[in-house]
């Protein structure tokens, strides 16, 4: 256990700087964009979710998220490039699934940190606007209780800050599917089992379906889309990705 803990911390230390930079970016950049947007006319009467999206704050979060995934990719591949530390790791006296789980847990921490940072940025951004509205001299302002309304109404905020357990399960299943899927995709590529990439594509397709559905709400009133079933399906993908990745590691199929 102790050796796994060390391994985990070691793996995370490789991601630490990048994660921290992206997290700080996810908090600060939206605030800068929002601040710039608030200089425009009528900013104080806009719904927060509209202002956030149109200021570019949302786009910046998206860019950082993509960068985070790139960071994961780089962290996996760096084991095979240059120092080829992967082969040294494989000779360590630890079970090989520990190697996999250590890296995966490090990714999980990065994901969590980034998620919390995005949420914090959105939250602080609302505070910025709320403060501005409170001190507005023309007496008009955005909806009272705007943060709550934004979170339950806005299409993209519903994804980032899900209110109910169904949404939370869906968001978590998307996050884990993306994380394990990326790792699995690389392992498949390394071990030349390219058919595994179809599974990654399959999970990606499902993720996109879920995103379309959740962003489109409440419009797909009548669409027979079962959110919980899609979450379960994604988690099954996650189990397969993790299970097969561990088997690939154990067999030493990765060259």
């Amino acid at each position, binding site marked *: 256990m102790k050796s796994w803990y060390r391994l985990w911390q070691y793996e995370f230390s490789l991601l630490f700087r990048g994660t921290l930079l992206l997290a700080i970016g996810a908090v600060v950049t939206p605030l800068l964009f929002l601040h710039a947007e608030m200089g425009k006319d009528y900013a104080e009467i806009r719904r927060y979710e509209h202002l956030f999206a149109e200021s570019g704050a949302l786009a910046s979060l998206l860019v950082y998220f993509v960068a985070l995934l790139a960071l994961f990719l780089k962290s996996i591949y760096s084991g095979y490039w240059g120092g080829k530390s992967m082969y040294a790791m494989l000779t360590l006296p630890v079970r090989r699934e520990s190697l996999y789980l250590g890296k995966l847990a490090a990714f999980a921490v990065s994901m969590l940190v980034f998620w919390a940072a995005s949420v914090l940025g959105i939250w602080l951004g609302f505070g910025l606007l709320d403060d501005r509205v409170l001190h507005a001299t023309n007496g008009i302002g*955005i909806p009272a209780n705007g943060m709550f309304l934004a979170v339950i109404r806005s299409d993209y905020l519903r994804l980032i800050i899900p*209110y109910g357990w169904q949404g939370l399960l869906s968001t978590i299943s998307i996050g884990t599917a993306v994380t394990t899927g990326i790792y699995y995709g690389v392992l498949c590529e390394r071990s030349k089992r390219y058919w595994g990439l179809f599974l990654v594509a399959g999970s990606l397709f499902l993720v996109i379906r879920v995103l379309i559905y959740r962003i489109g709400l409440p419009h797909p009133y009548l669409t027979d889309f079962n959110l919980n079933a899609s979450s379960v399906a994604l988690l099954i993908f996650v189990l397969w990705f993790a299970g097969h990745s561990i088997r690939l590691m154990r067999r030493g199929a990765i060259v």
Partner: protein
Amino acid sequence: MRRDGVARVKRLLKRHAALPLIAIGLAILIILYFQISGARNNGKLELVDLYGDRSALRDVVLSGYVQDSYHRMSFELTEDKIDKETVVFGKPSQPIANYSPGMPLPSGDMAYQIFPGFYAGIGFEIQAWRMQEGYRMNVEGTALVETALQYKGTADGYSFSNHQEKGLAFVGERIFYVPPTTRYYTGKSGIYEVLRFGDRNSMQKPEEDETRVLVELNMEGNRQEAWQGLEILGLEAVGDKLALIALEDGEIVVSGYDSETGDSLGRVRLAEYVYMLGQGTEPPKADDYYEDYEAYVDEDLGVLNLKFYNTGSPENETRHMVASISMKDEVKLINKQELSYKGRDRSPSGASNNWFSFRNGRLYVMKVSSVEPEMYTLFEGLYDQQVMIEVYENGEKLYAGELRTDVNDDVIEDRYLASTHFQQERSEYREIGGLRIGNAK
């Protein structure tokens, strides 16, 4: 020394950095969750007294909700407090449209619409639609009503007093219908009960009777050129009794019928008049009302409250009359109240989203109006929603108050930014609905 410290922190971070970050991350997420879920009941609701004393509300509970597609905040207002309870929908749904005349009339998970029938002299097809999540899905069946009416009006089509659906009434699962005819019809009509909905094309003749006559209504005496005869405004259900709202020589008459046997339970003349436009002599001089009444039923008391709109309302004033008719033991007029409001009193989107209740000797009014805001606004959908509460006793106004909400915040952005092709996404705008008045517990 200091350098040592920095190095130690660096080493610690390198060895344990994940733990504090997990803690901070989880803390942010959890605190925010509690912050947001704690804010769910923060929607503004505040009773502001405008006239009289609030103690007039002592005996009643006023309830309703504020909702959009994503959440619903139900409230209960009593003399001294407002209780709020918010539900965030697991799956956002289409906003439940307030009924406005002309739409298929919803009842339970069905909605009913009426079309002219192709058989018999003058007949009607009642079409039953299955509803799902506020949407009309498919037609479940049709019931043909065959009348013994003859039309004596002008040749360019039939005339009706009200929207056809106003003739529908529901007693539990049972459906009743009376055609809302004018005095241009003669012959016999009736209150019909739907026996079954046939699964057929409306061009096909039903194989067996789909409706039966519960009460026969005789219109032989109708004369179009004089204000004479029987005209039908609509049908309402009060518990298991039916109330026929009709005009006899222009005077509003409410008749009660047993929905099982069709036996008359009595009738009451309101001494108020509706003169529908048409050919003929000048109507007698009297205060008169539009035919498009609104009905509010207090099931717990067996009281039918009918609201009529005075045709003589001046430009900047709206006059109503609310007649309360008890159907409990006998059909009896128990109250009549004239109401007057400044300005054009209109309901949001034409829907009748109000509640009138006569209880404990007082008339209680809860009314949502669509009020033009100070800022020039092109679209009525962007008007303010205003909730007024009033209490009347013995014809006198005891109390008036405004239930202030923050629902109008939702339209501010569009009021400023809407362009000429603005189309309102109704799911993102809160509406006030489900208004009810009951006795305090």
